[in-house]
């Protein structure tokens, strides 16, 4: 900015300004990404707030009636208690309501259940998220690694049978919705052949939760089918992405140049093709990972697996919107956060976007 020259260079304020400016110049890339993410988060908050306002009827009213019956107090008092407990007053001025909602979020309070006391979005995340993350991140990383290995291979053998098979697999797995895959596995492997359990995260009757071998084994055992279903569906997508990316890279001049330099095909494959082809996939992987925090709603409901997704769909069906809001905001927040992290790591992976 031009008027920085008007400051006397010697005053401490000008010095401070220059230090601040230098800081901004140096970390321009990261700072602008962070600023963008904060803006997106704020806008997301606003949007979810208005989604809440769209709900017809008065949830506080029903909650107050419940409290009235429970505690035997007057309806007015019960209503006040309800308002306090729900952090939600339908008669409140919309701006103030927004500020309260906003300050709640800032303090990390994602919202309380209307139906059950002592249940909040925060407590649900604490108990459900680990299960969701266990399932989906296992599945994600299995499908990612299988996908890039197969994708890299078929890109180099485009005329072979493997590529044709991969194409068919990509088409099929892209056409079978994940819930159908889950249903098929449940029907066949669980009900028909009884190889795996069909439901739940572990057998509460035979094992005790904690760090003990039978429990861990049982959790893994129950996780098999969901992870398998999820991986089967998603691997195709990763194969497709990796194959496309590799084919693009193989057409680049530096591959031909590396060949002309007499480098072995192993070196070319690993250090030239894969390294470059993986760059765009890192972003996709980050986005996919961020998406995990919302839980896989249908998948978890088919396996009756107590993750966040099952919780969300259950709460929606029982119209417990306060919690639903919180959970949806949480997953949106995580997507933004993970994307931000990926963008911050990216220059470190790809020297082309590195800034001095």
């Amino acid at each position: 900015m031009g008027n920085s020259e008007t400051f006397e260079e010697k005053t401490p304020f000008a010095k401070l300004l220059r230090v601040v400016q230098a800081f901004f110049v140096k970390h321009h890339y990261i700072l602008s990404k962070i600023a963008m993410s904060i803006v997106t988060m704020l806008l997301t908050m606003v949007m979810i707030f208005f989604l809440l306002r769209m709900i017809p009827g008065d949830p506080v009213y029903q909650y107050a009636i419940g409290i009235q019956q429970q505690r035997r107090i007057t309806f007015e008092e019960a209503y006040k208690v309800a308002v306090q407990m729900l952090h939600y007053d339908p008669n409140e001025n919309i701006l103030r309501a927004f500020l309260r909602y906003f300050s709640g979020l800032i303090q990390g309070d994602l919202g309380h259940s209307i139906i059950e006391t002592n249940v909040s979005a925060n407590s649900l995340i604490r108990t459900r998220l680990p299960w969701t993350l266990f399932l989906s991140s296992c599945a994600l990383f299995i499908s990612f690694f299988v996908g890039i290995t197969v994708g890299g291979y078929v890109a180099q053998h485009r005329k072979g049978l493997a590529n044709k098979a991969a194409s068919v697999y990509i088409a099929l797995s892209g056409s079978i919705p994940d819930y159908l895959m889950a249903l098929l596995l449940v029907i066949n492997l669980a009900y028909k052949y009884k190889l795996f359990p069909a439901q739940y995260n572990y057998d509460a009757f035979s094992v005790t939760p904690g760090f003990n071998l039978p429990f861990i084994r049982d959790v893994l055992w129950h996780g098999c089918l969901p992870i398998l279903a999820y991986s089967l569906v998603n691997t195709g997508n990763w194969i497709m992405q990796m194959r496309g990316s590799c084919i693009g890279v193989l057409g680049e001049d530096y591959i031909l140049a590396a060949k002309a330099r007499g480098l072995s095909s192993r070196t070319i494959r690993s250090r030239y093709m894969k390294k470059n082809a993986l760059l765009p996939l890192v972003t996709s992987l980050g986005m996919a990972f961020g998406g995990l925090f919302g839980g896989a709603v249908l998948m978890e409901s088919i396996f009756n697996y107590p993750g966040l997704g099952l919780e969300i769909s259950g709460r929606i069906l029982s119209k417990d919107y306060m919690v639903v809001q919180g959970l949806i905001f949480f997953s949106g927040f995580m997507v933004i956060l993970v994307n931000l992290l990926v963008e911050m790591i990216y220059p470190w992976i790809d020297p082309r976007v590195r800034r001095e």
Partner: protein
Amino acid sequence: MDAIVRFQNVHIDYPLKKYTLHAVSDVSIDIARGKITALVGESGSGKTTLSSALIRCISEPGVIASGEILFCGKDEEPIHVEKLTEKELQSFRWKRVSMVFQAAQSALNPVMTVKEQFLETMEEHGDTSPAAQKENRCKELLEYVKLDPDRILKAYPHELSGGMKQRVMIAFSLLLDPDLIILDEPTTALDVITQSYIFSILKEINREKGISMLIMTHDISIVAKFADYVGVMYGGKLMEFGAVRDVFKKRRHPYTEGLIGATPSIIHDISAIKPIEGTPPDIMNLPEGCVFWPRCVYFEERCRQQEPDTVVYPDGSKCKCLLEGR
């Protein structure tokens, strides 16, 4: 002539779904040892295909259909390049023949530093000397092409300008002391001053290290300035070959004559130059007989009917024209 490479009746085909495309047909040419030989021709003339056949890096799906490519090192049996196995090729490439690509701008791996790529190439070719020694070798070469080695070595390709990258590639091509360097349009995307610098560096390399060079270009002025021998290619065939001065003075082939006559210069009489009429041949649909007849000012009926033989003169120069000596 003491040849380092002999192309003998080389045919290079691209088998496509419906027909086969003859990118290079029946080209015989000798590349002189220790000299600079230029191949000049327009797009589609087959010059790049021919030269990449020398290191067997023809773009897919091209194949050497027939003919021999002999690489004759000093005091050793000629190597049949077209018969080398994949393993033998790996040690042949870059150690005997290296190449500076037309697309030098994108010939370096974008995610590795210059140093990493230099060292990798040395290691892959079995150089087991200590790292410091290898690094010194890289620095020496970069200084040779007038670059600041400390800055360049740790740079990533995108941090270099076009002219710098081109010089890095030239240094790179010298890395394993090859006998021959192929230069494919080494200055196409660069401006004249950078171009002039690069040619003086190349000439110095040729003189001091005695490395033979094969340069592909579409610009006949560069040939005049830089090369010792020149082969003129058109429609996948060699039209004329000879020492640069001879070719420019004698202009045996009508195409050569047209090409030189159509190139504007900053000193010669402008009113004398005139274009070659017509368009370059479609490689998928070459004319019968002599490939040049549709554009030739000396055209006679027999040019359409029979393909001319290549006449070889006592001094080794060649001309492929029925009306030779017109």
